[in-house]
């Protein structure tokens, strides 16, 4: 019998916290009381606190069991397109936990926080170098917040010229955060379609670009895994009407050390440290979304900024045209630190190698699976490739079914149903940290699943079989939301 990659194991059920515990238990070592009790206005106080009481061991078991129901990157491959699920180095976790960093109050006088300030300045320089841009702000707490910052930078640029433009061009392949961020800044997204080759054409931009359009939001490489070859020409068209080009740098993993984004005409770019720069996803966050800008946008960067004066570092608000603040303090320092360590561990040669190998891995998968899944764009891809379920339609098998069955083979499914331009999209990004053997396993699993679709499609429709739960009733969850217990 062929051995599946995924296997059964003994996981335990675990109830909710408040279904456990008993009143009076405690899992915390309460600190010694060395002061008296002081009177407190009873009008302000509340004796009732309806939180469960658990012992320490109960908590340990609770969360240990919960963790075992999760699939993590350390468990197996996550070929999620546009997420860059690469290995999260453990040394970075250890160093982020150093007391000097973890225990540091953000409002310490600069003289007492030189290490952190220095790290931030150096990271800014690294990211400027990697992107080919001139100045960086590490403040945005995630990619979407970086996008909002970019929108605010563009808004301020026009405001300084006495203009208030109302539109921004957003390609049909854009990530949902793009139009959402634009809308937060009061811009109406103007959609443009990609060509049959899957990239943007200058003429389609020319058609819609006018003096009321703030600019364009471009992802490069785009969400189809293709390099926007016409970006420079598109940037010229946008700039000609004094619009600006926003670059969504989520896919930076394809081009480190290979492409100079500063030369593509992009004016502002965001990065996702939790993608390209190996910081962990944490089940949904925290991440970090620095923005990198060309010189003309530098005066508008968020404050405070770290500046260097006579070999010392300090924070300064003295940037009168700054867009303001996006974060209470300086951004997710703990995440920045990990990216900093990653860049120092890799070095320039390995960062470029990482991009090369990411692209090699994606092309390898594309070649090996192009007869298994329908490939809408049969041309060399970058770090990710997009398939669809078109070849499986006759068996009435959907992308969703393929995705769920992949779990039984020990893989997290790829990104599905995105980008929207491909019906039933399956977007695969292996990243450079997956070995050839891992890719071959994945390829074999896909081929086996497609065969199952032909011979016994119910195996897919009933999938997943090995997970703790089967497919969820998402309809009831949305009709009758039960958000607290």
């Amino acid at each position: 019998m062929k051995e599946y990659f995924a296997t059964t194991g003994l996981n335990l059920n675990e109830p909710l916290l408040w279904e456990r515990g008993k009143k009076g238990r405690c899992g915390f070592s309460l600190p010694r009381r060395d002061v008296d009790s002081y009177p407190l206005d009873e009008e302000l106080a509340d004796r009732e606190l309806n939180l469960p009481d658990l012992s320490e061991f109960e908590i340990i078991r609770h969360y240990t069991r919960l963790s075992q129901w999760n699939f993590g990157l350390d468990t197996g491959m996550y070929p999620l397109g546009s997420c860059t699920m690469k290995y999260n180095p453990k040394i970075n976790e250890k160093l982020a936990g150093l007391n000097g960093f973890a225990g540091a109050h953000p409002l310490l006088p600069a003289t007492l926080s030189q290490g952190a300030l220095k790290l931030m300045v150096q990271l800014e320089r690294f990211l400027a170098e990697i992107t080919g841009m001139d100045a960086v702000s590490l403040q945005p707490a995630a990619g979407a917040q970086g996008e909002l910052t970019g929108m605010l930078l563009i808004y301020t640029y026009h405001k300084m010229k006495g203009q208030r433009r109302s539109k921004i061009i957003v390609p049909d392949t854009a990530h949902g955060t793009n139009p959402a961020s634009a809308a937060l800044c009061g811009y109406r997204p103007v959609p443009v379609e990609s060509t049959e080759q899957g990239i943007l054409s200058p003429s389609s931009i020319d058609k819609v670009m006018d003096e009321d359009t703030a600019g364009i939001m471009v992802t490069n490489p785009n969400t189809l895994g293709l390099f926007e070859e016409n970006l420079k020409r598109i940037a010229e068209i946008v700039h000609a009407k004094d619009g600006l080009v926003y670059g969504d740098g989520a896919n930076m993993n394809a081009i480190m050390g290979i492409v100079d984004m500063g030369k593509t005409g992009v004016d502002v770019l965001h990065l996702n440290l939790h993608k390209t720069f190996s910081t962990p996803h944490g089940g949904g966050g925290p991440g970090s979304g620095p923005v990198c800008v060309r010189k003309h946008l530098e005066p508008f960067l968020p404050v405070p900024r770290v500046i260097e004066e006579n070999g010392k570092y300090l924070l300064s608000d003295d940037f009168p045209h700054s867009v303001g603040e996006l974060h209470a303090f300086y951004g997710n320092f703990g995440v920045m630190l990990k990216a900093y360590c990653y860049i120092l561990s890799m070095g320039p040669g390995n960062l470029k190698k990482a991009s090369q190998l990411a692209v090699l891995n994606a092309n390898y998968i594309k070649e090996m699976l192009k007869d298994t899944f329908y490939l809408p764009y049969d041309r060399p891809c970058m770090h990710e490739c997009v398939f669809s379920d078109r070849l499986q339609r006759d068996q009435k098998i959907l992308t969703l079914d393929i995705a769920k069955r992949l779990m039984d083979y020990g893989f997290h499914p790829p990104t599905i149903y995105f980008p929207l331009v491909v019906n039933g999209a399956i977007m695969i990004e292996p990243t450079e940290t997956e070995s050839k053997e891992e890719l071959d396993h994945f390829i074999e699993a896909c081929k086996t699943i497609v065969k199952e679709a032909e011979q016994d499609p119910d195996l897919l429709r009933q999938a997943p079989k090995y997970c703790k739960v089967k497919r969820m009733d998402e309809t009831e969850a949305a009709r009758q939301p039960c958000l607290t217990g």
Partner: protein
Amino acid sequence: MRYLPHTDEDIASMLETVGAGSLDELFKDIPESCRRHEELHLPEAMTEWELNDLMLDLSKSMATSPEYKVFMGAGSYEHHIPATVPYLLGRSEFVTSYTPYQPEMSQGTLQGIYEYQTLVARLLGMEAANASLYDGASALAEALLMAIRITRRKKVAISSLIHPMYRQVVRTYFEPTDCQVLELPYLENGRTDLSPLKDMSEIAAVAVQSPNFFGCIEDLQDTGKRTHEKEALFITCFTEPLAYGLLKNPGSQGADIACGEGQSFGIPPSFGGPALGMLASRMKYVRKMPGRLVGMTKDKEGRRGFVLTLSTREQHIRREKATSNICTNSSLCALAAAMYMASLGGSGLGELARLNYDKSEYLKEKLRKAGFRISFQSATFNEFVVEFPENFTATYKLLLDKKIVAGLPLKPFYPELMNHYLLCVTEVRTREEMDDLVREVKS
């Protein structure tokens, strides 16, 4: 390099499959005009051991416990974190997992966040809490935008005693909108002055922070009443959620939305981030709420399970009409907060909050007895403002050399409060340390 598994044989074999002669050839279609030809000007790769040394060195320049006694809060709080929390949080199935879009393989995160949502809702006395936002500041901005969406009005009134950086973030978020942010002044007693409300019309929301930036506890019930008289939404915000282990929670005082910073719960200060934006509201507003939501449901065989729900509010579906642009949030920090709250339990949280209050009152009393004026009379939780003599800056610097950070000077944020300092005492500070501080400032 240990993170790159490809051998030369692997590369050769794969290049052959792909039909490229070299790795460089994979990029042949990239226009020449944007190619990089020079190597990146970055430091040479460091070994793990060199990196370790470098980071240790950098970290040594930072002023932290136990060496330094830091009496500062102002949005970032030093609390004891039990060893169990980082231990559990460090499990790679929590750390390295992705957003739980595939619920069958993410029940750990999903149940963990559902529990977090529940604990937050109970703590704040609200009906529904989301799965986290970035931090307290953006949570407040999002709460105000949410109120604008719900009421379709274009003005919000926020207290000047909300954390100055939070107000800055709100203004930044509001800058490109056609909405107005009005500020409410403060009274001599250290609470918000609500009197300007009577002349305001068509306001979407009134927001106060409690305990506020001066550490004072606001009269939430009264604020709520006056806000609802204006048919506006009552938003309460906080930087120190531990206060609600002791004080009446926002929900019981009429809050429509409660939001703030959860860093105190199991997350180290970390030089300001990552943090934890908490947001909770009445159930009837849940479809207008930003951020992810985890809901309980059943699988097709009747098993209880959890799933991300009401996703049509979010950017990946609603795009430009989404309730927010947020995608990545602060999930792991939310899990830490849940673990922390679970460790303390209801009784423990109450006791710890009481200890914070008492220690802070002790320092207040000692300072009073030493002849210093406590700037505001209103009751406080674990922070308060004290007025130090005119040339205190010199003393402050001397204290820094003695490894004592004697609070946060308020002058940069409230120019009228020159010589006033915001002090914070949590359970981490000992009686001895407080006695030392008082002795030092007296001399």
